[in-house]
């Protein structure tokens, strides 16, 4: 699925150069559930952004299937993100002025899906996370757990190959956290998703079949 070769990412922060990733060599097989842990500022989010095609490496390569994300033009990267990669964020990142149903539909917009199909698939995605009765609600009318479930529905409605989650339960209480993790586990099993989760929470990491630790830009297996 993913192959990272000598992946390095540096950027300037004021007068100093930050080495977020240092010569990372890593392979992630399709369908794996991987947890990435590490201290704050260790490079977890940077690695996730590389995997999601949101950022480019300073050197090295990162491929998803046969596509080299490090050399790809922006427009092509956007298409890869639209078709193959789903994102779930710690802060949910829902569009505040759109309803739950419309938020889910935004993921289908770049795919050119018809209006009818869009509505149908969004409704089904919301039902799969147990929010069929909240489709017409704005994010502000939903609890944190419900908002994250809408975000998961938005990530999965396009049936991606990969789901990247950045602290998906970081803003939730324990009970809600477990609900969300159960949903993610179920969907991964049912759909054969590759699930990569960045987390500080060991309870979340323990559910993964593979755990990576990243510190000062260097990745190690646990």
């Amino acid at each position, binding site marked *: 699925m993913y192959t990272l070769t000598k992946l390095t990412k540096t950027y300037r922060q004021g007068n100093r150069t930050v080495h977020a990733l240092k010569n990372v060599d890593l392979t992630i097989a399709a369908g794996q559930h991987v947890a990435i842990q590490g201290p704050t500022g260790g490079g977890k*989010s940077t690695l996730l*952004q590389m995997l*999601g095609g*949101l*950022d480019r490496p300073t050197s090295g390569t990162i491929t998803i299937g046969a596509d080299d994300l490090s050399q790809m033009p*922006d*427009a092509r990267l*956007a*298409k890869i*993100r*639209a*078709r193959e990669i*789903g*994102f779930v*964020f*710690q*802060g949910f*990142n829902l*569009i*505040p*002025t*759109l309803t739950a149903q*419309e938020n889910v*539909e*935004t*993921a289908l*917009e*770049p*795919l050119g899906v018809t209006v009818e199909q*869009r509505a149908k698939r969004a409704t089904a995605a919301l039902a799969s996370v147990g929010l069929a009765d909240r489709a017409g609600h704005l994010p502000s009318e939903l609890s944190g757990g419900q908002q994250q479930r809408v975000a998961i529905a*938005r*990530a999965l409605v*396009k049936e991606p190959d990969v789901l990247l989650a*950045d602290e998906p339960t970081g803003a939730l209480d324990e009970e809600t956290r477990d609900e969300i993790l159960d949903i993610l586990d179920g969907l991964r099993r049912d759909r054969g998703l590759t699930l990569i989760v960045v987390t500080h929470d060991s309870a979340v990491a323990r559910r993964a079949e593979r755990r990576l630790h990243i510190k000062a830009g260097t990745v190690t297996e646990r």
Partner: protein
Amino acid sequence: MFFTYLRRELAGRRRQTAIIAIGMALAIALVIIVNSVASGVKSAQASVLESVYGVGTDITVAQSPTPPEEGEGGQGGRPRFEFDAGAGTTTDGTTEISQSRLMAGFGASTFDEEALDTVLGVDDVAAASATLSLTNTTFNGEMPQFQQNGEGTAQAAPGTDAQAEPPQGGPDGAGGSAFDVDSFSVLGLDPSADAIGPLSAVTLAEGRTLDADDAGANVAVLDADYATSAELAVGDTIDIGGTEFEVVGTVTSNAADSASASNVYIPLDVAQTLSGEEGMISNVYVQAASSTDIAQVQADLEAALPDATVSTQEDLASSVSGSLSTASALVSNLGLWLSLAVLVAAFLIAILFTISGVTRRTREFGTLKAIGWSDRRIVGQVAGESLVQGLIGGALGIAIGLIGIVVINLVAPTLSGSASSGGFDLAGGQGGQGGATGGEGGGAQGGRGFGGPMAQTAAATTEVALNAPITVSVIAIAVGIAVLGGLLAGAIGGWRASRLRPAEALRSVG
């Protein structure tokens, strides 16, 4: 999704939408009102000019006025009345004298009528006619009998015996004098060429107008207002330059509340002969073949007649004075700059609010990019939102602007304007001066003439109710501004959104 998202965003950010829309609305309303009032003022100026230059005149040709030479009593000079010792009729020691003179007014310039042929020879000149502007001045006076106290002398010399006797005669019976001077404008024109020129802007009130058969005839057409004030009617006679003219018709100006260009109209050849201006004219009225030819015809005329002043209607509009001129200056200066300032402010507000909105929505756009939205789609979304905000402002602005125009038209402020022709103020009506000298030993010496400053006058003050028209072009300008403002703000905001790197956008809030 585009329209749903757009609608939700505008509805969800009502305050921003309202501020941008109100800013644009005020600017657009101001532009509409200023544009409409400018159009109304222009039309009022055209109305004033029409009363002077007639309908269909595109260009006028005149000679620049030159000051009269010292002691000159003819062309361009002051009227001078000379009486010999036996002039007038004497009754009871009082001599009544009267003299009428027809001449070009003070400071007026005339030029050779061959200029008309030159004008007609210029390409794209559809028609042209010449006129001669004159002033008829009549002197009426009563004075003591010049020879009552001496043998062939006009006045007793100081120190003689005759001085001991009190003066007699004159209007006061004590040797005093009284006189009055009356003047009216006379326009000599080619009676066969009335298609353009001053007579094309009049309506026949009574009798008939001049025609080709009147050339060489002592016939006159009077401005109806002047005829009323002078107690003249069709069939009466009027003394012009000492010659009796038959009044064959009266005319009124086409413009409301306005007198026509002259008090009296007579055939050009007669005017030239009577005024001693044989072969001379003061104005040529020119009609171009089409409106697009005017600039070229003007240039050709200036080349063909280098000493002449060639003016288009646009040039002549600047000669309109009075409150109309003030309104024109107000609209073209203050109105224009105020509109531009408000417009720029509205555009800046729209741009700043859009940029601020994009900055506030950094995470939103970062998220959309992360889930696969292209830059183009995001730019389109931002531009679409700004465009609709601009259009809402445009619709509101059109409504406010139209209400403003309706109010202006209901109030219909009256503007007065007068136009000058050939360097002369045509404002005013027929002029008149009167005076008396009295007292012991007073009176004019026999054989000595009178002179005085006579203003060149012709009736051309026009009062026009300002009518601000609502035109399609004004609405189109408003819509254009709304679209432009919306697109400009949207383009800048969209450009800013497109430059957001998704990773940075997400990191910036995370």
